């Protein structure tokens, strides 16, 4: 949830690029993302990148959890990817699929698609004080401990639920939260170098992508066991690392380099030997300091742009700073990349009047999506969305690219009132406007710019004859008390967005539009869309291994969803990042943030 929240805040920083006049020319903007070439994100270090130096990452808030099994937050991934090796990992320019990291190669998948086998690299060692080689058992333990209530990993119950014995292990952990990590029968360390994962259904494509997240960072059981016996686990106080960097610690492993809310000090892991153990990360920097507490993003951004050896962490520069930086800063100090997220407005498909697809299509047709997008800043906040899979995620082009599916109510981004009236007539409203009981509940995020987005959409509803009853509340309250709760969900939730978990369309569409995802608490299908054909298509597409077929299938599902108009997508966000002039920054497209293990000092 924090990832959604933080991402929502960060993405707001893009806004001023358009205002600055630097993004206004279509011919300078790169196609699907709307990002002009001069702001394109670098995804490789310069040829003359040199080792050494200290980098400071300027951040407003703290990471969510130091424990790789618990973290579920974009900013924390920036740290975990520098400190941990996971089975699969994302090179800066990877967009379609992750690369093997702790795994020696891409995993072997059995012919029936039910068994995934990872060969674990030799020579990867834990940081002091563990000081031993990583084995397959460490990865098995890392995944299994994620089920402990004291660790409470937020995504494996979704993406690894097809692993044999997963449900039983979940129940075991729930019954005995402090009794140690439960055994997932389908995950077996065959020997020190082989990890075997058995599935009930051939969902290997999803499982492999999910194992690129920090949950597959190895955890030494003998070191973590006593901390995992506590609920909540205290392993986060003395995490063992396998990547090029580690949080400074003492002889007992206690993390002395982490002061929550203030600072994280990353130093080189003495047990990391780079290419010798097959790590693709060059790790140029000597040390990295994450300085937290920079609440005022304007002054923090100016400090980064005018200072030395600094990059942004979880903050995005505000519009005025972006405008100035676009005009005055050196090339490359300001870069943007697609966030892998979307923004949309949900319509409750379970209650009148939005249980009628024609009414939903009327609202879609009437909505000025350009105006909605502009409330968040304009052209370079991202393109006007016409469907749900964001650019650079497989399935985007198959769903129609920027133009979107060939549907009349999608065709006019500025809105088509006449077509909307036709759809209203099809729904039985002779006047082309709502008649009778037309009260609509709308509950949105009260902070800017979400409030402005809501106001624009409320105007659209009024033009169609609806009587919106609007409430602006705190973002977390909106989600947890209203929009995420099927019993409380209003007719319209206007402040919704979804950020991918990894670069597979399943992580965008399944949680948000699969009828099976509707749950009593923490519901993510906010439209309550439960359309059997779509549910079935998703279940089938989840089993496809071939990348092209998979993209085709999910692109088709995206179109099926848009046809039902359960929500109105209006933008796919871009993410802006800034750096000091003497930093040779590299952006990791997966995380849309600086890749600390590829960034170097250039001054």
């Amino acid at each position, binding site marked *: 949830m*924090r*990832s959604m929240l933080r991402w929502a805040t960060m993405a707001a920083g893009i806004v001023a690029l358009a205002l600055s006049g630097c993004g206004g020319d279509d011919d300078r903007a790169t196609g699907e993302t709307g990002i002009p070439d001069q702001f394109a994100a670098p995804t490789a270090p310069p040829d003359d990148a040199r080792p050494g130096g200290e980098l400071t990452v300027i951040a407003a*808030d703290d990471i969510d959890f130091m424990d790789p099994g618990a973290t579920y937050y974009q900013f924390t991934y920036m740290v975990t990817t520098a400190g941990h090796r996971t089975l699969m990992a994302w090179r800066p320019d990877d967009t379609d699929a992750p690369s093997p990291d702790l795994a020696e190669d891409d995993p072997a998948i059995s012919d029936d698609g039910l068994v995934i086998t990872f060969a674990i690299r030799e020579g990867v060692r834990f940081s002091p004080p563990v000081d031993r080689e990583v084995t397959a058992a460490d990865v098995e333990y890392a995944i299994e401990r994620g089920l402990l209530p004291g660790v409470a990993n937020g995504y494996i119950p979704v993406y690894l639920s097809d692993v044999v014995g997963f449900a039983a292990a979940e129940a075991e952990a729930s019954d005995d939260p402090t009794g140690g990590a439960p055994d997932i029968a389908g995950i077996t360390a065959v020997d020190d170098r082989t990890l075997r994962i058995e599935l009930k259904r051939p969902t290997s494509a999803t499982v492999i992508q999910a194992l690129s997240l920090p949950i597959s960072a190895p955890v030494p059981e003998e070191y973590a066991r006593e901390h995992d016996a506590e609920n909540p686990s205290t392993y986060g106080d003395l995490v063992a690392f396998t990547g090029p960097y580690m949080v400074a610690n003492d002889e007992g492993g206690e993390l002395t380099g982490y002061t929550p809310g203030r600072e994280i000090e990353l130093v080189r892991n003495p047990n990391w030997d780079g290419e010798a153990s097959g790590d693709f990360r060059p790790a140029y920097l000597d040390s990295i300091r994450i300085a937290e*507490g920079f609440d005022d993003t304007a002054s923090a951004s100016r400090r980064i742009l005018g200072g030395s050896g600094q990059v942004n962490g979880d903050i995005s520069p505000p519009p005025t700073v972006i405008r100035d930086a676009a005009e005055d800063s050196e090339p490359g100090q300001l870069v943007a990349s697609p966030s892998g997220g979307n923004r949309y407005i949900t319509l409750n498909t379970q209650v009148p009047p939005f249980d009628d697809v024609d009414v939903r299509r009327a609202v879609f047709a009437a909505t000025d999506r350009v105006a909605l997008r502009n409330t968040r800043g304009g052209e370079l906040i991202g393109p006007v969305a016409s469907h749900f899979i964001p650019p650079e995620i497989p399935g985007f082009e198959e769903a129609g690219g920027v133009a979107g599916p060939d549907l009349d109510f999608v065709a006019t981004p500025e809105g088509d009132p006449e077509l909307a009236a036709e759809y209203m007539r099809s729904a039985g409203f002779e006047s082309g406007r709502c008649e009778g009981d037309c009260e609509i509940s709308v509950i949105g995020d009260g902070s800017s710019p979400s409030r402005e987005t809501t106001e624009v959409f409320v105007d659209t509803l009024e033009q169609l004859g609806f009587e919106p009853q609007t409430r602006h509340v705190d973002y977390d309250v909106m989600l947890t008390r209203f929009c995420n709760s099927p019993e409380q969900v209003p007719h319209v939730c206007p402040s919704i967005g979804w950020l991918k978990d990894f670069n597979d369309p399943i992580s965008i569409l399944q949680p948000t539009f699969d009828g099976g995802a509707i749950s009593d608490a*923490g519901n993510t299908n906010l439209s309550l869309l439960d359309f059997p054909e779509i549910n079935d298509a998703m279940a089938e597409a989840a089993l496809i291994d071939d990348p092209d077929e998979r993209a085709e299938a999910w692109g088709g599902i995206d179109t099926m969803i848009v046809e039902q108009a359960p929500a109105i997508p209006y933008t796919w966000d871009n993410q802006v990042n800034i750096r000091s002039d003497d930093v040779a920054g590299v952006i990791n497209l997966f995380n849309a943030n600086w890749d600390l293990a590829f960034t170097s000092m250039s001054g």
Partner: protein
Amino acid sequence: MARFVVRRLLAALALLVVVSAVVFAIFNLLPAADPAELRAGKRASPEQIEEVRQTYGLDDPVLVRFGRYMAGVFTPFEGGPLNLGTSIFSDNEPVLEIVLDRLPATIFLVAGAVVLWIGIAIPVGVISAVRRRSLLDRATMIATLAFISAPVFWLGLVALYLLADDVGLVSVFPGIGAYNDAEGLLAKAWALVLPWTVLALATAAIYARYVRSEMIDVMGEDYIRTARAKGVPERQVILRHGLRSAITPVVTLLGLDVGLLLAGNAILTESVFNVPGVGREVVDAIGRSDYELIQGIVLFGAFFIIAFNLVVDVLYTYLDPRVRRR
């Protein structure tokens, strides 16, 4: 005197209990975000959310949680006394530890600012009162009005953009986050020059006007005229007879203000300059809906306000014997 202090202490304790109950009610009875759902993450199943609820005892009835909370804070049971709970969003760190960790920075910030604002406000107030309607009086009163009108965060940003060594036009004083980087008392003091100045200027302006007003009243009293008639030097009349009387209500104000600032009211200054104090922590806690932490900080703040009121009450008995007699 001892009875007076004991009576006040008991009243303060009772007040703390009431404040604790109110704070608990605010965060547990009024509509707020669900911490279990937030902690469980965006893809959490209802079962996972329930487990988080159980882990942190959020599934217990409100009265049970209230009893546990109060017992933890005020009695030796439930990990108490002074068990303010744990922050479920900060690696489960105990709230008390978080507050105690942030407190030194806030105390240092407030202490320096108090010295500065008293050092500015009293001379300015006295001189303005003594030289009433003079050019100096008018100039200082206009200046104080300006500082009172300017929001602290705006003053802070202006100070940064003018004088900070990282983002300022002229590189003079340490800028944002300098306190975190500084090692040793002197370096930390140097890092706080701008925050002290900003916090002090905004408050000194109020105090200067207050001292001026009190001094004008006092200097018109009969005993001042008598002192002058007896030939007491004017300097002594002002400082010994005038200021001593005028300062008494200022002490009340000071006690309240220091209590409030230690309670987190230096929030804007701490945020602008990235001073890792209690105020900034509460901003972060609000940002992530960390109610246990917010609750703990508010309670701690209430403690400071009550404690400083107590100190002021006791101090008053020395400054004004009539209070003791009552």
